């Protein structure tokens, strides 16, 4: 196993088990239905779940063709109705109206509490109606926010084909990315292309990213002669990557520990545990780690990283020496904090809903190393924080920026504290060299805005004269 060897000692981990705010993990529907184009997501829960998706995530209206609630009513909860028959009725209707390639059942707290056996029902129904049904129990009792994606991908990992198809044509079918990259080119060119790659065992990346970022990271590895055989998830359910025993896998998101475990234990893949490709430093470390596993000497990474940093300087100088406090929301906190420390910021506290020290080991080690190299104190890592206590610490520490969930942003701003919504980092394109600037664009926005409204304070909210 390639999980990083170093268990950082000096980082301080605490757990407040407090009352903290984050989004429900079923919110993953918001981005996954867009990512997997032939899917249908059925959230099996109550009005509370539905209203959340409708109002906080704004999912319902726009996703309507490929998303619905199976709203549990009194009869379902008191078990007067037969779950199987009810789900069959709904899924048959979905098949008739939408004919998706897969129906993803998203379990909720309610299906957990009333112990609906979704995993038991799915195979029977799948056989009966002839559409694959994937079950993800993305409930709020066990998970927070982005971990919803983890539950879906872990379930999908079981559905990846376990043999590379023999026929060459079929293979092309499967590999959406190579098709994209080779789009419209002749066979010979493609064959010639193959020579650009070093010979190495197949590598599959996991984590849901917008298509442009998938292309960027795939190209980044291609520069090193590394070929990405597939992504989990793919653009279409029918194009899930092949996973044979012994394939290498690597996660690009910090919240995918269950998927990683499933890939290792159930699919017998080898996990490359690397820091995550967020920020130029993380991206570089990620590429280096993959190269090292394949025995490849990375080419031109120094220059590439330096060139990206040079392009960031105008933003970096705005935040150098400033402090940032993460209240904790989307589990991207460690990676973002590490990047921001590298930019010269200090981080007193990183709140995080759930800390998997094994899956994030390489990232934690890099954070520690980065702090040492930048000569700043190590952050305190606070799992399941208590928001009320955090606010007291924020008042005391007066950080220059607080990255927080949406519920606390306006009130903190009203108290003169700069904030940035953590959820924006979930939805923005932040991975890879190319998008490092977008991360800083978000981080610096409140600081830039405040520069332009400088020193107005709260008793005097507007400028008296506008400068033209």
């Amino acid at each position, binding site marked *: 196993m390639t999980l990083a060897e170093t268990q950082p000692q000096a980082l301080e981990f605490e757990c407040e088990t407090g009352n903290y705010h*984050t989004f429900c993990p079923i919110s993953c529907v918001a981005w996954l239905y867009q990512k997997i184009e032939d899917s249908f997501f059925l959230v099996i829960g*109550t009005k509370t779940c539905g209203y959340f998706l409708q109002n906080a995530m704004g999912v319902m209206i726009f996703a309507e063709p490929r998303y*619905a*609630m199976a709203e549990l009513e009194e009869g379902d*909860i008191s078990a007067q109705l037969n779950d199987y028959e009810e*789900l069959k009725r709904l899924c048959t209707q*979905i098949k008739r109206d939408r004919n998706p390639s897969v129906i993803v059942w998203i379990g909720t707290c309610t299906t957990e509490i009333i112990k609906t056996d979704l995993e038991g029902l799915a195979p029977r129904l799948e056989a009966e109606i002839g559409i694959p049904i994937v079950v993800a129990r993305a409930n709020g*009792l066990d998970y927070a926010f982005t971990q919803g994606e983890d539950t879906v991908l872990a379930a999908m990992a079981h559905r990846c084909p376990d043999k590379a198809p023999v026929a060459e044509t079929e293979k092309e079918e499967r590999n959406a990315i190579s098709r994209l990259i080779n789009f419209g080119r002749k066979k010979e060119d493609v064959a010639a292309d193959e020579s650009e790659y070093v010979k190495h065992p197949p590598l599959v990346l996991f984590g849901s990213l917008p298509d*442009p970022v998938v292309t960027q990271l795939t190209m980044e590895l291609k520069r090193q002669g590394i070929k990405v055989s597939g992504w989990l998830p793919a653009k279409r359910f029918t194009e899930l990557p092949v996973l044979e025993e012994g394939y290498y896998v690597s996660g690009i998101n910090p919240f995918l520990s269950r998927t990683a475990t499933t890939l290792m234990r159930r699919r017998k893949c080898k996990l490359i545990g690397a820091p995550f490709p967020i920020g130029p430093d993380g991206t570089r470390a990620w590429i280096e780690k993959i190269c090292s596993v394949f025995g490849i000497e990375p080419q031109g990474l120094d220059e590439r990283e330096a060139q990206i940093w040079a392009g960031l300087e105008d933003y970096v100088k705005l935040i150098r020496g400033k402090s940032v406090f993460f209240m904790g929301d989307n589990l991207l906190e460690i990676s973002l904090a590490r990047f921001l420390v590298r930019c010269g910021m200090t981080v007193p506290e990183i709140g995080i809903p759930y800390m998997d020290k094994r899956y994030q080991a390489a990232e934690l080690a890099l954070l520690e190393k980065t702090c040492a190299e930048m000569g700043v104190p190590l952050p305190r890592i606070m799992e399941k924080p208590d928001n009320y206590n955090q606010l007291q610490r924020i008042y005391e520490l007066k950080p220059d920026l607080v990255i927080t969930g949406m519920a606390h942003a306006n009130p903190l701003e009203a108290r003169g504290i700069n904030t940035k919504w953590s959820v924006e980092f979930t939805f923005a394109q932040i991975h890879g060299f190319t998008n490092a600037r977008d991360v800083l664009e978000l981080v610096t926005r409140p600081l830039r805005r405040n520069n332009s409204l400088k020193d107005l304070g709260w008793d005097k909210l507007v400028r008296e004269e506008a400068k033209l």
Partner: protein
Amino acid sequence: MKLAYWMYAGPAHIGTLRIASSFKNVHAIMHAPLGDDYFNVMRSMLERERNFTPVTTSVVDRNVLARGSQEKVVDNITRKDAEEHPDLIVLTPTCTSSILQEDLQNFVERAQIESKGDVMLADVNHYRFNELQAADRTLNQIAQFYIEKARKRGELPTAKTEKPSVNIIGTSTMGFHNQHDCTELKRLMADLGIEVNVVIPEGSTVYDIQKMPRAWFNLVPYRELGLPLAEYLQEQFGTPFVDITPMGVVETARCIRKIQQILNEQGAAVNYEEFINEQTLHVSQAAWFSRSIDCQNLTGKKAVVFGDNTHAAAMTKILAREMGIHVVLAGTYCKYDADWFREQVSEYCDEVLISEDNGEIGDAIARLEPSAIFGTQMERHVGKRLDIPCGVIAAPIHIQNFPIGYKPFMGYEGTNQITDLIYNSFTLGMEDHLLEIFGGHDTKEGITKGISADSDLAWSKDGLAELNKIPGFVRGKVKRNTEKFARERQIEQITAEVLYAAKEAVGA
């Protein structure tokens, strides 16, 4: 189980929390799983609230499920009591945690022992009631509790105010244009020489409740919130109430005349006729407008109305009576109060629809092909698909329903706003139509204008494919920047790689 795509009214706990957080110095503890606390997000974002939403989730997770939640809930209540000293803490489950069937009343009693403030369990059946019904019940429960409390202490006032006065019941946080309506109603009361005694729940404290019996009458502008409370106050103190929604010229006048009657019955001698006349003719532009040439073009046009009871009924009456518009269908999602709605609108429309199923309303709109819709965000969405303009007149709320500018729906200023809304909705339709005829709309799909025409650069297929993935509104800019980048470097073919290199270089 039912397939649902959209909800007009939220779950019960949202209603309870809206009431609790409307009051000053009241805190709510929500006993629920982590993901249920989005009320805080909605309120903070929609109302652009400067204060922390006074709602804390006592998180239910696996551990709590295994160990039982009593200790945690009681701790959270007493902790909040000590931290913030609220006058009242309201405990509510969500429909999810109410499945656990715990004895929450018992939790509350235990917590009360150690708390300085009052502690109360919101008495709502989460399986039976929606947001609107729950809000109504919670308001009633809190008000009765404090009236009783004052009575026991002998603190209830015995006399009415010297001058005519009113309690305005039903303004709450996250209500549709509630803040603006409230301001307008206060102005109206001032114009009528009536003192505002208490506005409840928004902005009042629970100890303001005991002052309510001093008012000469209660005004309940919204059908959905406050009626049971007004009835209770009438029964307890004989305070009469007015439940005519002052929306539109006709109903506003009717509301004022009712107030006049009530005041005069109690010995005042007011006559508001001149005021009504003056307002109708000169302050409100609505009456004049409906007789103007502009409005003639609207005569006989078809409209569909859908919303909550208050707004859908009022809007139907305005369209039919004041603007001469043909309401082909009036509908409400307040199924629980359907009879009232039917009675209110039947004579002003062809068809009445009572439904919570957005599909049914969408189908009806498609079948009827009205020139305009007045509905919720959902109908606006339907209208977009069918190319029918829609004015939003009712919750579910949306950030657009919290405009920075002053936009009441009630009173005389409200009549102007509504007229604007109606007129713009229809003419927007017409302009759209004209634009279509003259090809003014840029609706045709295209990557960017002039992608091949004036460009000396070639885009490879993968380059184009990547460009196509970039959202339309920035695509043009990205394309320009990329081509500039390519030109500077004498790159002839723009591939995906070039596109991203350009992005890195210019930060586009």
